[in-house]
């Protein structure tokens, strides 16, 4: 007999060096003739005795090797040469592993279709049952084509020991069953102990076992590991039932939340033996229904959460529209002043604002500002600021006093500690005199005859909402016909490119001075295009607001 104790280079040992130290491994090499099967039989008989294999396991090992090897001998070789087939078995605590290797044509017996079951003898297929038997008498099968060889690995679990039977009998699937009836049914099933955190199933995994939770607890996560959406599987429940029923890959993560003991029922045993017993079939349906109900509940929660979010989203959109609706759109300041004002809103609710309104027969107020922060609080703060701006400016008091009062009122009621930067300017359309105050905002840009742009030095003043005691200085400049004023927010100068550079004031001045603009709106379009080009597809992170004003001076009466 060509028996050999396998060397460390044998595939079975290479895969799991840790266990192989203790595991017993035997290997046999035979020729590709059916006559060799008697040698296999003798070899296996000796191993069965030496390893004291239980009858059920010994039978399954015998059967699987018989089917696998005769299959190879009969079908793997297309020539008349002599070939070798290597059979190896390994004895482990929980299972016996079998490996059959041959250099025949590539053939994967695992994914092959089984014989269709026939209803009567007349229509039944005579052959083709070998592969079916390999599957049904083992717990796991894997096939690989390695270096021109077929390698079939089959695992045959040791059946649950008598001590486990009580535990198994308490599971809901076996409710009302005698343990004496149970024992023979469990041949071919596997007890498995899992550590806390061990993943038992993951989406996409092919699952051929019903997992009964005997002790411990599992968690199911539908979308990703560690997500809150999911449910718990307690002892007495099961998992894997859906993929066993619909034969599709597992759809969720199943993870042990504490050390647990599971019983793995191969689908073949479940269908062909267990579910033929009415009581077990009913128990199974009940478990299945419970599981479906738990799943539906989780889905419902997820759906509700999404609807709530969508509802909130819609409310925000409405708020955003109201906010934008407060900004003036169509502006007519007479023939002396040509004006263009607009805001390009970022995705989120931002805090930019502007306003233009008459404060006297020849005088207009022009304002621009930016609230610190984003979101709903910023939007509400902006609405308050805008409202105060209008009411204070219409009182006819000096502009610095208006700003001082606005600041005091904002400070008085500012639970969320928001700030705003703000420029308020008053322009007299007859004289072209511009008086302005600045609460920490970017300077006004003046384009001399629309050609040479510079920043006007901002008068002293800090942002509003920060200190009740703040006071503001007023500055004044006389405009000549053709002069252009540009008021902007940092959405322009701090626009960011994909490589995280800022647009900057220099680039804005450069853009303005490029060439004289035909109109205020043409100039606004030019700036917006330049910013957009600079961002080059990067997401606009902040509101972008521009107020551009061209002073044309007193127009001769026609």
């Amino acid at each position, binding site marked *: 007999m060509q028996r050999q104790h396998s060397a460390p280079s044998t595939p079975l040992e290479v895969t799991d060096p840790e266990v192989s130290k203790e595991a017993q491994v035997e290997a046999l090499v035979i020729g590709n003739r*059916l006559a060799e099967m008697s040698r296999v039989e003798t070899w296996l008989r000796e191993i069965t005795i030496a390893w004291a294999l239980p009858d059920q396991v010994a039978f399954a090992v015998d*059967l699987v090797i018989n089917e696998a090897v005769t299959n190879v001998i009969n079908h793997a070789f297309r020539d008349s040469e002599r070939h070798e087939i290597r059979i190896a078995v390994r004895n482990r605590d929980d299972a016996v592993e079998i490996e059959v290797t041959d250099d025949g044509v590539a053939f994967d017996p695992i994914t092959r279709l089984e014989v269709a079951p026939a209803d009567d*003898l007349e229509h*039944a297929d005579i052959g083709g049952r070998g592969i079916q*038997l390999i599957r*049904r*008498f083992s717990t796991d099968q894997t096939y690989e084509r390695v270096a021109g060889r077929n390698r079939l690995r089959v695992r045959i679990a040791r059946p649950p020991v008598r001590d486990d039977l009580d535990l198994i009998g308490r599971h809901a699937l076996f409710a009302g069953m005698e343990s004496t009836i149970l024992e023979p049914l469990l041949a071919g099933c596997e007890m498995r102990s899992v550590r806390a955190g061990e993943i038992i199933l993951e989406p996409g995994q092919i699952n051929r076992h019903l997992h009964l939770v005997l002790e411990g607890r599992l968690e199911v996560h539908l979308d990703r590991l560690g997500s809150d959406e999911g449910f718990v599987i307690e002892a007495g429940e099961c998992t894997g039932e859906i993929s066993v029923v619909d034969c599709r890959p597992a759809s969720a993560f199943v993870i042990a939340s504490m050390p647990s003991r599971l019983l793995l029922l191969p689908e073949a045993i479940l269908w062909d033996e267990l579910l033929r017993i009415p009581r077990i079939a009913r128990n199974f349906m009940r478990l299945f229904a419970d599981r479906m109900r738990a799943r539906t509940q989780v889905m419902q929660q997820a759906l509700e959460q999404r609807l709530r979010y969508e509802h909130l989203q819609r409310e925000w959109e409405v708020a955003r529209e109201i906010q934008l609706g407060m900004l003036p759109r169509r502006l007519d300041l007479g023939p002396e002043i040509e004006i263009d004002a607009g805001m390009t809103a970022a995705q989120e609710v931002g805090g930019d604002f502007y306003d233009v309104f008459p404060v006297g027969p020849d005088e207009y107020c022009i304002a621009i500002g930016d609230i610190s922060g984003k979101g709903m609080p910023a939007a509400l703060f902006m609405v308050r600021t805008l409202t105060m701006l209008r009411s204070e400016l219409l009182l006819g008091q000096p502009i610095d006093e208006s700003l001082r009062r606005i600041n005091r009122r904002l400070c008085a009621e500012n639970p969320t500690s928001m700030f705003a930067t703000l420029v308020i300017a008053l322009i007299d359309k007859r004289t072209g005199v511009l008086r302005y105050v600045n609460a920490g905002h970017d300077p006004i840009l003046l384009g001399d005859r629309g050609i040479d742009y510079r920043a006007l030095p901002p008068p002293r003043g800090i942002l509003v909402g920060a200190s009740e005691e703040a006071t503001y200085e007023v500055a004044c400049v006389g405009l000549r016909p053709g002069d252009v004023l540009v008021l902007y927010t940092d959405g322009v100068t701090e626009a960011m490119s994909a490589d995280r550079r800022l647009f900057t004031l220099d680039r804005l001045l450069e853009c303005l001075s490029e060439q004289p603009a035909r109109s205020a709106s043409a100039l606004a379009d030019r700036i917006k295009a330049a910013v957009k080009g600079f961002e080059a597809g990067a997401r606009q992170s902040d509101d972008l607001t521009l107020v551009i004003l061209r002073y044309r001076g007193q127009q001769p009466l026609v």
Partner: protein
Amino acid sequence: MQIHSELLDDNILKVTLEGRLDVEGTQAIDLKLTTLTATSRKAVLVDLSQVDFLASIGIRTLLTCAKTTSKRGGKMLLVNPQPMVRAVLDRSGVSSLIPVYADAETALGTLDAA
């Protein structure tokens, strides 16, 4: 692998198989069993109590012979298989094609009832 046969009456043949129905064992009894089932009879009782191993090659022979018996108007019955052999018959789907009985008396009883 051994095969014995006895006529229980004119119309019922009892065949007793003994040993392993693997490649070698099946080859040893295949011709004899086929011949025995080729004669027209009411029933062929195959006693499996002495069979301690059954592989797909053995299933093939059992199914072929059961088909032959059936074509000649008879019926094949499998009797008293050992638990693991019974498991092979169940898991291969054979037991839904050829009736399997725990003992000869029950098997014969079904014939009388029919």
